[in-house]
């Protein structure tokens, strides 16, 4: 019987025991005579033979699972994880990075401790500041500005309320985060709330020249329960391009063009304003650190949750039959169009039928006249 993990099960002293229990001795007569029968050689050989039988504390995978395929090894590993994974001490209340994206905090969970831990207070070096941000700065430390977290929290909660209400009223919210690493946060916020995201470069003119740039992208007609209603494809083709009703920008310094276009078109914006950013570029600034991914994930998470709550309110109202949004103008029901088209067809058919009848009558008259001429009996019909 081969015992694996012998030392782990029985302790390292067990190894010593086996060595004592099997003293060195000769087994075969053929080993006695020959060129390799010196006592040192025999001793070495026996030690080596025993060493093979002693299981090592860190066995190599090849030695152990030589008979198992990769899939079998993987399943075995998973089984052992399940059985033994929870052994050891239980650590609660610690930072798990993935939870910011998988289960983002809501506006009520925003605390100064959370913002501090997410490095939202870290501003830029003092010479690089924008003096318009003076009201949000708490002080200076080691040559950098420290953003006041009370201001951050207050502005974040206000922005969350705005986002929730816009979402409840069926508005199109665009979450923008074009820096590397912000894509996951922005996509997740849009996913939660069934809104829209942008994580690559904003194409200048997408609002001011929207027909050219976004004209090919597909739109759809939805009802109060957010279910798609088909039959409007022809009407959608002629409609103007859609614009966001609210833009949430995680890095306003890189998205000047986007914010400018929004300002030109009366679209309110929310932005994460660092100490060197211009707060007048956005309607609702959130003074925070835009260079920290963790801070961006917290802010995007909170706003995503708020939008999710607004969407939920809108859908609940929709279930009851209440419409919280302004319906689309100039849409006609496809059935009405169909009946109009059918009526037109019918009229056309009737006309054709009348014409055919006339032709037929004329032909019959001709035939009758011919007969009359041939036979000379029939009376000519009056036309």
């Amino acid at each position, binding site marked *: 019987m081969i015992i694996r993990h012998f030392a782990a099960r029985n302790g390292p002293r067990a190894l010593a025991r086996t060595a004592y229990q099997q003293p060195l001795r000769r087994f075969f007569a053929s080993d006695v005579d020959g060129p390799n029968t010196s006592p040192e050689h025999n001793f070495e050989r026996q030690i080596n033979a025993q060493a093979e039988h002693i299981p090592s504390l860190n066995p190599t995978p090849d030695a152990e699972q030589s008979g198992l*395929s*990769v*899939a079998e*090894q*993987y399943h075995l590993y998973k089984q052992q994880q399940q059985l033994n994974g929870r052994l050891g001490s239980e650590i609660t209340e610690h930072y798990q990075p993935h939870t910011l994206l998988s289960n983002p905090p809501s506006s009520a969970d925003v605390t100064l401790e959370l913002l501090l831990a997410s490095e939202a207070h870290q501003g830029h070096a003092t010479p690089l500041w924008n003096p318009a941000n003076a009201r949000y700065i708490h002080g200076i430390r080691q040559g950098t500005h420290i953003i006041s977290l009370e201001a951050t929290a207050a502005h974040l909660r206000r922005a969350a309320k705005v986002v929730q209400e816009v979402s409840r009223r*069926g508005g*199109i919210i*665009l979450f923008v985060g074009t820096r590397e690493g912000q894509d*996951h946060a922005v*996509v997740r916020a*849009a*996913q939660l709330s*069934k*809104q*829209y*995201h*942008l*994580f*690559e470069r*904003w*194409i200048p003119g*997408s609002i001011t020249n929207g027909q050219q*740039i*976004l004209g*090919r*992208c*597909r*739109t*759809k*007609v*939805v*009802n*109060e329960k957010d279910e798609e*209603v088909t039959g409007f494809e022809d009407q*959608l083709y002629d*409609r103007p391009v*859609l614009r*966001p009703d609210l833009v949430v920008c995680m890095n306003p310094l890189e998205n000047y063009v986007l914010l400018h276009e929004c300002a030109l078109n009366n679209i309110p914006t929310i932005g994460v304003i660092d100490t060197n950013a211009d707060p007048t570029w956005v309607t609702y600034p959130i003074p925070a650190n835009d260079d920290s991914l963790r801070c961006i994930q917290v802010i995007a998470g909170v706003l995503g949750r708020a939008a999710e709550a607004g969407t939920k309110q809108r859908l609940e109202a*929709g279930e009851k*039959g209440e*419409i919280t*949004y*302004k*319906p*689309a103008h100039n*849409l*006609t*029901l496809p059935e*009405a169009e169909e009946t109009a088209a059918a009526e037109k067809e019918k009229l056309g058919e009737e006309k054709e039928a009348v014409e055919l009848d006339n032709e037929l009558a004329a032909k019959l008259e001709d035939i009758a006249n011919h007969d009359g001429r041939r036979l000379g009996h029939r009376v000519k019909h009056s036309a």
Partner: protein
Amino acid sequence: MTRGELSRSLQRAIGTLGRPSCRRPIPHPASRSKPSPSRCLSTTAARPEELQVNEVQEKFTAAAPIDFGRIPGNRRNVLAALRVVPASPSYFSAKPTFNDDYISLCALLRKVATLPTVSPAEAPKVAWKTIEQYRIMTNEPVKNQRYHKMLHILRRLNCVHPSLMPQEVLDAMQRYKKETQPGDIKPAPGVVDEMGRAKGVGRRKTSSAVAWIVEGEGEVLVNGKSLTEFFGRVHDRESAVWALKATQRLDKYNVWGRVSGGGVTGQAEALTLAVAKALMVHEPALKPALRRAGCITRDPRKVERKKAGHVKARKMPTWVKR
């Protein structure tokens, strides 16, 4: 009997005679057994309906309850609930299909990231769509760099160990693969026929050769002539049977070859390839040895064409200063 009574009875009799025999429906046995409670209990005069107890009562179900939510044919109600929204969450990127694809692949990779992988060299060979083909498929102006980022993720997904590859990953990858993959069309392997012959075809420059190899003593016939008769040059004789010489099987096989086209050396080299291919049909395990001997690759060199402005393919007329 009085007159009135007689006439009444007569009338009744005549009436029954004249009436056609009507088949009265068989009354339901239950209705007979059921006592009519109203007749039993009521002290008022019996109502006319209750006298017809034995009539059949057909089963029916009442109409469905009124749905006050939907008023049929009310157009204003339906239109009042409709709004136009973008079909994809990536609408404002101007490349919605590409961005949705990228996001879904990233999410899939996060899901299967912990599965065992193989090295890229051992992963199954896949021909991914070119950027042009992808642009045609999605009808979007996708940038080179971003498409290659997506290909990077696809290659990583392809490296998941084949025995543990989830079906959803295979389904997701299928969209980005070319329609024809490198291993799809496999040429039928050559067979040794009932007489022990294997055929091989070889070409070099404009010569083509067909060689049949059988187990034998080492005889060689080319176009009906022996090797020494056909090839005057020793080098050509050697190269014609180089495949057998390199694998030390000159005395084990007989060669019957037919060559045409080109010159002597071209025909000899064509025979090299033909004999090697025929030998591989007999012994497929010799392929690495034959490759080392240089018999497997078809030499693609051919006479280069003459170009305009040149005397020959490369030679130019003498350069004149003026």
